[in-house]
């Protein structure tokens, strides 16, 4: 095996790369995260909805409304305690598998933040159970108080985890002067906290519409449907302000990517606005204006639109962070910015621990190229599935691939630079060329430029 000796302990590109077929690691995280976000924000907003609606039932002396709150709390527990909690663990699992280096960094910076968030989570879970099992055991005042304790703990949990999440895109002063305070109170923390709180209120209404639509008592259903619709509309009012504030604090490149620098992101950003507007419009003209005609199918439609809005928005948030996973600190492929020069000097295969070759095999460069792809590109690209590299290079000849690799981050600002030796770049190019049938040699576009394919790039080609 070429270069079988182990590199010395302590380099970057530390971990074996897991390549889930078709989805890729990013989408594995994305699928779990989007579903989790859809539920976890409900866990916060719903936590406000329950005590406020319970209090309303007491004040209006409305036992039917109280019965509704009770049944809604069962739905709430089943959705948030089970799916919300386990999918939250799922994100932790997934990021550890797909981006261990970044996860380890976040844990080193924020371990006490996570510990604090866990305290809130513990109180939240305990309060949820006591609220749920306490309907017939606790007096109204105590029961309401437990509901409020739940909400405060849930919101504080959001507050903490949001600071950690926002850090990844806007690490702010932490880059120059690392400290917990600099990391947590980063420029994006407050605007995203506002957005997430508003989204929680919207989702409290969206989920309440689902349960309210099934109430049999028509008068009560009309009341609760309209009441739930107000939650959607009230929450939605704050989101544009939070969004504008957030956009203002984003790094310039993160603003440019959805503004046209990457068409897919632009489309998704537009879809985010589109779905959000649809949620508000449908809610206003549906359950708010005409609660009598509102039914479960309509409620499901609004829920699906909300999930779509949330999904594309989270996708855009992740996309605009490219080419980094921790902005200005670590690239999406977990290469630290500070390590680029060193890795470039000694080569990616020598720097990466988990490769089967630590030097390019001159006999089979395409095999080495596959290894280079695994450690440097596979965190975002799959071969044949999501963000397929086969499609990306289809129709490209060796010069085109060479040019792209040499100027990767200049041609596509959302991509990290290619980091590796010349031999590794050639090996990667050779492997990329094996992915598609080579284009037939056409007339050169410009006189004097030869469009011939170097034989050395073709695996199995006879060498001169």
């Amino acid at each position: 095996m070429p270069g079988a000796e182990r590199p010395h302990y302590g380099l970057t590109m530390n971990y074996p790369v897991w390549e889930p077929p078709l989805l890729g690691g990013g989408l594995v995280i994305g699928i779990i995260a989007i579903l989790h976000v859809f539920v976890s924000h409900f866990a916060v907003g719903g936590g406000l909805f329950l005590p406020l609606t319970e209090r309303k039932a007491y004040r209006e002396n409305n036992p039917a409304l109280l019965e509704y709150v009770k049944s809604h709390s069962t739905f709430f527990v089943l959705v948030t305690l089970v799916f919300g909690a386990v999918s939250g663990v799922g994100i932790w699992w997934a990021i550890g598998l797909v981006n261990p280096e970044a996860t380890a960094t976040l844990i080193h910076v924020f371990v006490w933040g996570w510990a604090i968030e866990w305290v809130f989570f513990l109180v939240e879970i305990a309060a949820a159970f006591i609220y749920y099992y306490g309907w017939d055991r606790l007096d109204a005042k105590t029961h309401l108080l437990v509901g409020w304790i739940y909400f405060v703990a849930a919101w504080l949990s959001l507050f903490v985890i949001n600071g950690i999440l926002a850090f990844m895109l806007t690490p702010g002063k932490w880059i120059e002067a690392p400290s917990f305070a600099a990391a947590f109170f980063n420029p994006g923390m407050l605007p995203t906290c506002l957005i997430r709180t508003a989204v929680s209120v919207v989702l409290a209404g969206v989920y309440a519409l689902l349960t309210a639509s099934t109430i049999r008592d028509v008068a009560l259903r009309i009341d609760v449907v309209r009441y739930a619709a107000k939650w959607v509309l009230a929450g939605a009012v704050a989101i544009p302000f939070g969004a504008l504030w957030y956009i203002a604090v984003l790094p310039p490149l993160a603003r440019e990517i959805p503004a046209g620098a990457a068409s897919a992101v632009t489309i998704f950003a537009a879809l985010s606005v589109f779905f959000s507007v649809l949620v508000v419009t449908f809610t206003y003209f549906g359950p708010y204006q005409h609660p009598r005609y509102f039914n479960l199918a309509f409620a499901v439609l609004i829920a699906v639109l909300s999930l779509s809005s949330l999904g594309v928005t989270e996708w855009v948030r992740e996309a605009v962070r490219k080419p980094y996973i921790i902005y200005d600190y670590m690239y999406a492929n977990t290469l630290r910015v500070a390590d680029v020069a060193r890795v470039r000097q000694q080569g990616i295969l020598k720097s990466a621990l988990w490769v089967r070759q630590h030097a390019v095999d001159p006999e089979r460069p395409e095999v080495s190229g596959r290894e280079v792809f695994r450690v440097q590109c596979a965190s975002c690209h799959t071969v044949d599935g999501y963000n397929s590299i086969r499609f990306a290079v289809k129709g490209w000849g060796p010069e085109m691939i060479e040019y792209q690799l040499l100027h990767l981050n200049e041609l596509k600002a959302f991509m990290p630079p290619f980091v590796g030796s010349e031999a590794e770049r050639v090996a990667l190019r050779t492997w990329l060329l094996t992915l598609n049938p080579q284009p037939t040699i056409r007339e050169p576009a410009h006189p004097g430029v030869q469009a011939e394919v170097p034989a050395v790039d073709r695996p199995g080609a006879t060498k001169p």
Partner: protein
Amino acid sequence: MNPVIPAPVPVPLPAPVWLVHLLQIFTFVWHLLLMNTLVGGGVMLAISSYLGRRDPHHRDLVQRLARVMPPVIAFTITLGIPPLLFLQLLYGQLFYTSSVLMAWTWLAVVLLLMVAYYGIYWFNFRQEALGARGFWVTLVTALILVRIMLTYNQNMSLLERPQDFYPRFLQTPVGHYLGSFDVGTLLRFAHTLVAAFAVAGLGLMLLTRVWRAEAPELAAWAQRYGLRWFLAGTGVQFLVGPGYLFSLPVEIRNSFLGADTLGTAILAAALVLAVLAMVMARRSPVFAAVAIAGTVGLMVIIRHLVRLARLRPYFDPHTLPVQGQWVVFAIFVVLLLGGLATIGWMLYKFFRPASARATSA
């Protein structure tokens, strides 16, 4: 072949190693006690669900156990977070590597956990409607919980053997490794599983105290039944435990068999407490529970010492740089105390006698 071990991240530890170890051990004990109750209780539920087709005692037991299981699984998960967080802080480079090598199996834990959790709720809410089919729900749930336990054992065993990382990497595509089924890992798994049966039995004995007023006959029967589980589990552990001990490398094993005074004393104390618990369980389940909690605590310390010893040739967390985040740590401690007080107050309100609740209302 030299072991391949990722480098720790170049960010200092936010607390000294001893403090992180202390918190890791302390929180893991709580997680382990609950996890044992969950897995043992899950198996007990499945068995009673089957026997309950003919035996009214088991039928009644199932109804009551099913109600307890949702909070048990919720708090098992919740209390599992801190020890895993602290593990990732100190041993992240080992934990992530072992997890990535068996990524599919490890990620499946999340999906399986979700299925088991909903299985528990489904059975709880729909017991009567499910009828005899309920047994299958409980069986699948129990098998899933046991499988999750095995996966944890495999991952934690692999992370303690970094010399195995690179060979596994070369043998199987990344993520496809199914975990080791070697004798040492299986004995470790058996050790954990048998402990779960014992702790669940003891947990049942404690639970019957809550039912004593409203269902004295069932409570008396369930107390005897729980005692059988506890005694059988702990008794079998006296065979399985030494088996696991003797599967450890000889120098590590000997450190608990006389070569090291502290290690030997801890193991001896754990065994004495377990024997005391067995002797006292019939007369005082509370005493037995305290003693077994002590045994579990000491076993967690032994587990920690074994891990340190296994990793000593490859990695020592004490070599990592430290830059304490003491203000945030203090905030954490204050909030933890406040949080526990809040939970205590809520539990007090919830569990106080009905007469007191009626008076205050």
